[in-house]
């Protein structure tokens, strides 16, 4: 079943077009990788899907679970089961991870017609998920991302994903800045998340991560368009030959 259908998506920021007609369909159970050089528009795509109003959609359509995604405010998208692990997670001093995540989870649960979790049940759940990403429980009392190292921020994103249990997760360069051990921990967290009725888009510009999270499809984004799609071997190919040929092919 198609969980996400992106059709001819155009988006710009500050009057400059960044996405110039993206077409992409992601079915439940699938993992798609999006690769591409710096500045090709990968994060812009993630932000547009998250609903950041800094980016204007100028054309096209996005259907999520058959519903018009672009008309939903960001919180509704999250409540409907979309999760973005951001490339640059924001620091929020004064708001503890615990408080933040409990507020988020309970809003989402309410939307799904589930009961809100009380403090005890929440703590039990959270401890289990922390273990998954091998994070210290002391971290719950720290303010969201404030003073975290780059690697800690990335792990925190995966931890949040594990707690919120979205249907569609988009990981934007979650691998960058991670050492190999952290990368394995993150990949393990992600792999546990894979089920038949979920889907995932993994944005990366290194093939490395895809050794651990094996994608069903790989797409290459260049200059705001998907210029090539293929199986998992495409990632290996790109690793050897780089993006140069592909970019030229488009601009020519």
């Amino acid at each position, binding site marked *: 079943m198609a969980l996400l259908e992106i059709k001819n998506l155009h988006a710009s920021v500050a009057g400059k077009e960044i996405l110039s007609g993206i077409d992409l369909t992601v079915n439940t159970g699938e993992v798609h990788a999006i690769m591409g050089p710096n500045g090709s528009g990968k994060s812009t795509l993630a932000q547009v899907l*998250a609903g950041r*109003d800094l980016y204007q959609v100028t054309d096209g359509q996005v259907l999520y679970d058959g519903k018009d995604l672009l008309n939903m*405010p*960001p*919180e509704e998208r999250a*409540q409907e089961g979309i*999760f973005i692990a951001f490339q640059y997670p924001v620091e929020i001093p*004064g708001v503890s991870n615990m408080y*933040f995540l409990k507020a988020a989870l309970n809003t989402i649960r309410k939307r799904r017609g589930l009961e809100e979790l009380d403090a005890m049940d929440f703590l039990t759940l959270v401890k289990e998920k922390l273990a998954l990403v091998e994070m210290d429980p002391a971290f719950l009392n720290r303010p*969201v991302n404030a003073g975290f190292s780059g690697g800690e921020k990335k792990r925190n994103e995966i931890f949040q994903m594990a707690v919120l249990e979205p249907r569609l997760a988009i990981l934007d360069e979650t691998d960058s800045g991670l050492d190999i051990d952290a990368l394995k921990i993150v990949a393990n967290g992600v792999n546990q998340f894979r089920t038949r009725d979920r889907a995932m888009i993994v944005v990366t510009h290194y093939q490395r991560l895809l050794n651990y999270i094996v994608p069903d499809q790989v797409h290459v984004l260049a200059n705001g368009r998907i210029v090539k799609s293929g199986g998992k071997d495409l990632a290996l190919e790109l690793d050897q030959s780089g993006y140069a040929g592909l970019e030229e092919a488009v601009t020519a």
Partner: protein
Amino acid sequence: MTGIEPIRQDAARRVAELGFPTTRDEDWRFTNVSRIARTHFSAAPSDLSAWGEGQLEQRLVPYEGSPRLVFINGCYSPELSSLKLARGIRATSLREANGAVEAHLARYAVYQDRAFVALNTANFEDGACIEIPKGTVVEEPIHLVFLASGGDVPVISHPRNLVVIGPHSQATVVESYIGHGANYFTNAVTEIVAGDHSVVDHYKLQEEDERSFHVATLQVQLGRETNFSTHSISLGGGLVRNDINAVLAEGTEATVNGLYLPSGSQHVDNHTVIDHARPHGASHELYKGILSGASAAVFNGKIVVRPGAQKTDAKQTNKNLVLSENATINTKPELQIHADDVRCTHGATIGQLDEEAIFYLQSRGIGKEQARDLLTYAFARDIIDRIKVEPLRARLGKIVLERLHANRN
């Protein structure tokens, strides 16, 4: 209180000579008190008729079970007060203190060039008198509660408090101003004298009615190696001016923090003077403000380092969160440094909520309004979390949240 009669007469003369300050006075540039100057106030009645059934009890909840002195429009109310303190500790009304502390009363808060202090000194009827003898640790916070009410006729009260803490003693004093009704003016002065090596925590929670005037001076005289802190929380009042003057001795450590949350047409002015009179003193000052509606706030933080006050370490920060385009803030540090081997830092910020942070919270399912509240509360929490008196902290946390909701609607 006959011993201080000459002082009161002198203060009365100064009232006549000084008149009320105007915005031409540097210290009152951004705070216009002409509404006070124009009003003819009469002495406030000391009854509770303005308070509805149950209304008062509800407001007094945070002070239950603790020793407390309650004043109604400036007059002591033995019925509402509760004084369960160890022997040797004095906690009475000034009138009942019967001159016991006249050596201290009205000796610290300078009135010669301060109209409102002079007005209080000349006219005060009563107030709290706390005296903690040498080497005494008082665990429970002592609450001073000032109930004020207004009605058809403008009324004024002049609470006057004196807190004397002996050397090597420890105490916590909480001043709470609770108001109800329009057209009244609270003009308070509190003097705190902290002996050498004492530890003193002071809090002021100001919840006056938004249609009232509140002007207050806290004068703090600190001994050597004392550790003093004050937290001034301004919630209510239509026109509010708080002055804090702290004089430090050798090795004194003083923390002066504040939080103000003006909304609607409220005007809140905080003026502080930290006077490093002797060497090796440290002061930490953090004032935070959240402004909404068409409110206005003023922060003026003066740090004085006297000649010879070497190794002074003074830090001042004022941070403002401006939630509305119609709100205004004037913030100014004022450093007067007359010693060379010192460290003084100051900084002020004026900003809005972080849009990126709002979006991040939304992207996790939290609604925009709730996201804004969360971030606003997080800004205030910095101060709230420092309050060590639990019921006070809980009360404040609750009010701040209520405020956030009210501002939205």
